[in-house]
């Protein structure tokens, strides 16, 4: 573990964590406002990436940065209006089920239109190459861009919610939707906007994540489970908790993936040699990088045992 590795992993981990936060913040907002857990949230991420892939070939990346999230917003709002609203009266489980169905639908539609293999969603010229070099390793501009966009987005959300009128209405509708409606605000429309907004956030994450990482049909599945873990670990309904959990998980995964030590290496430090006959060898020989995929889920299980409310959670259940 040298300084170069540490710095680069730190920066990469932060940028991945911030991307996770962009996704999980939209999920948390929708859950806080509407009590709906949007199972299709990661699918909106995927759709955003694919739409940006297509539109950037026509109008370029920088315009796609605006256009693609807007299209995803429209999709999300339409879904809320025509599907989600109908099951609202059945309770939370049917709401979750309908978003679950949507995730299947979006996956199949994407595969229908763009095919089942990865597409070559390229970085624009302005974002290719390194931003700076530290200790001989490059830190790519694209990752720095992710960090920038997510911070800007976070700041605008916070401003929107706390300083504007619509934000106050949203905050009020969070706990007292009937009262807010009685005051003359169109609460169903607010919900539609919030759902669309959350989807647009996910889409935006897709636009910038899709070309930094890979754009393929499996991208929804791989990140989907992790953002649910983030939301539960951070505490259901807590934006700051989601922020903390996203960064933690992003950092842990980035560091873990690059570390090849295992318990055998550790035991070797104490001059304890391990052979294939040693008891528990299959467990001992696992390197940290091999274990990396399950770390977020292990984290989830540990949090549930020791701190079920989540890191910064306030609401129960």
């Amino acid at each position, binding site marked *: 573990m040298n300084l170069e590795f540490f710095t680069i992993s730190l920066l990469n981990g932060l940028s991945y964590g911030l991307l996770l936060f962009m996704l999980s913040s939209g999920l948390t907002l929708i859950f806080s406002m509407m009590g709906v857990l949007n199972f299709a949230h990661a699918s909106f991420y995927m759709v955003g990436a694919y739409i940006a892939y297509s539109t950037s070939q026509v109008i370029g990346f920088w315009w796609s940065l605006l256009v693609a999230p807007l299209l995803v917003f429209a999709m999300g709002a339409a879904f809320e209006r025509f599907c989600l609203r*109908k099951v609202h009266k059945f309770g939370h489980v049917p709401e979750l089920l309908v978003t679950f169905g949507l995730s299947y639908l979006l996956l199949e539609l994407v595969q*229908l239109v763009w095919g089942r293999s990865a597409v070559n969603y390229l970085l624009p010229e302005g974002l290719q190459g390194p931003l700076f070099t530290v200790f001989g390793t490059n830190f790519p501009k694209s990752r720095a861009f992710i960090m920038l966009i997510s911070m800007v987005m976070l700041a605008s959300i916070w401003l929107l919610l706390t300083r504007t009128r619509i934000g106050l209405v949203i905050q009020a509708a969070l706990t007292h939707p009937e009262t807010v409606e009685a005051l003359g605000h169109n609460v169903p429309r607010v919900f539609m906007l919030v759902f669309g907004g959350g989807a647009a956030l996910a889409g935006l994450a897709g636009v910038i994540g899709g070309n930094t990482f890979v754009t393929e049909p499996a991208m929804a599945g791989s990140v989907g489970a992790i953002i649910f873990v983030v*939301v539960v670990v951070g505490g259901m309904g807590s934006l700051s908790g989601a922020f903390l959990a996203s960064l933690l998980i992003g950092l842990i995964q980035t560091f873990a993936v690059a570390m090849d030590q295992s318990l055998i290496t550790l035991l070797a430090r104490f001059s304890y040699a391990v052979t294939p006959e040693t008891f528990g060898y299959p467990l001992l020989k696992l390197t940290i990088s091999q274990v990396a995929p399950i770390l977020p889920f292990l984290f989830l299980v540990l949090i549930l045992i020791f701190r079920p409310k989540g890191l910064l959670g306030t609401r129960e259940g």
Partner: protein
Amino acid sequence: MTKKFYEFKPYNVGRWLLWTLYALLLVVAPLLFKSSLALTMLSQAGYLVIICLSYNILLGQGGMLSFGHAVYAGLGSFLAVHAMNMAAKGSFYIPLSLIPLVGGLSGLFFAALLGYVTTKKAGTTFAMITLGVGELVFAMSLMFPEFFGGEGGITTNRAYGKPFLGISFGPQIQVYYLIAFYCFVCTAAMFAFTRTPLGRILNAVRDNPERVEFIGYNTQRVRYYAFIIAGFFAGIGGGLAAINSEIVTAEVVSGVRSGSLLLFTFLGGATFFFGPIIGAGLLVLALILLSELSMAWLLYVGLIFLFMVMYAPGGLASLIMMNLRVASFGKLRELWVGYLALAVTALVTLAGAAAMVEMVYHLQLNTALGAELGFMGIRLNALNINSWLGAGFVLMTGLGLFELTRRQFLRQWGDIQNEIEKEIRRRELV
């Protein structure tokens, strides 16, 4: 106030009849459908019935939405296949007919282990925890190739050991009857569960968890125990699956599997006991037949699922029961015209949509074969605008007509429901 008063209600004869019919169906099915494809489907359906019914203990009876149930069936499969291999090697003999119980016990064990943490919460949080735990187990599958068999999975031979009375379980038909036996016994056991105190309190927890606390029950405990029982039966199903396919790969504990369990159990109907049986049948049909017909089969299934959640959250079972209720009042024949119209217009819409979907897929995948494709006996040209316009026209017409028919049907249905209400009240007064 004897036992007779509560149990033997007027339609108890009907219940005995249903169970006998069910057993008969299981026994006779392979004699009616003789092809090997049918036998494969029946065998798969057999253990899927057990798994879907076990899933419904959580979903329909307990109100617990789990996205990771395949884990318990899958781990049951894995332990079963290891037990079979150990028996074949001679290190630990278990007759094949008891292997599903090995699966069951492993499902029970893992449900007790993982369920403790999972059932600490309820509702949406519970759903997400099951997702996380499911992903955890699936991700672990690559880490322990000794247990999970890595990419290739673990294979086995089910015809180990000496044949008993000529039964070696090599031929598929013998395996089918083993599956059918367990299917009947497990269905009966799970049905019996719904009639026990724990089963009933589980329903109460589904309906009103807070109230249950105030009648002396620890809702978390109730859910935990139900989770373990569901895991047990899922494990039995998994064990049978291992016997049937003689290979188990890590895919059996994946989120995709869990998702399909949820999808089809819900489609079959979570609010009635027999709903998941229908769901298992649909699952087999979709996996084996529908996937042959069209690449986009999952898209269609997803659409149907979406419509079901919005308009018929009780699934097919509830639709059947609603119509049975109408029939019991003698009013079903008034609806047959409406149903026919709905079916026809739906099919037309579907044809239009499917034509477009198939053309898209054709363009994407088979361009080497030219732009033409056959669809329901008509030749379509995927690059020709006429085909697209034609398909679009069919779709729009079908959709419009369907909407009209649907509204008319709803009006008719509503009238019939009112008539039935009046009839019920009239009978009450008599």
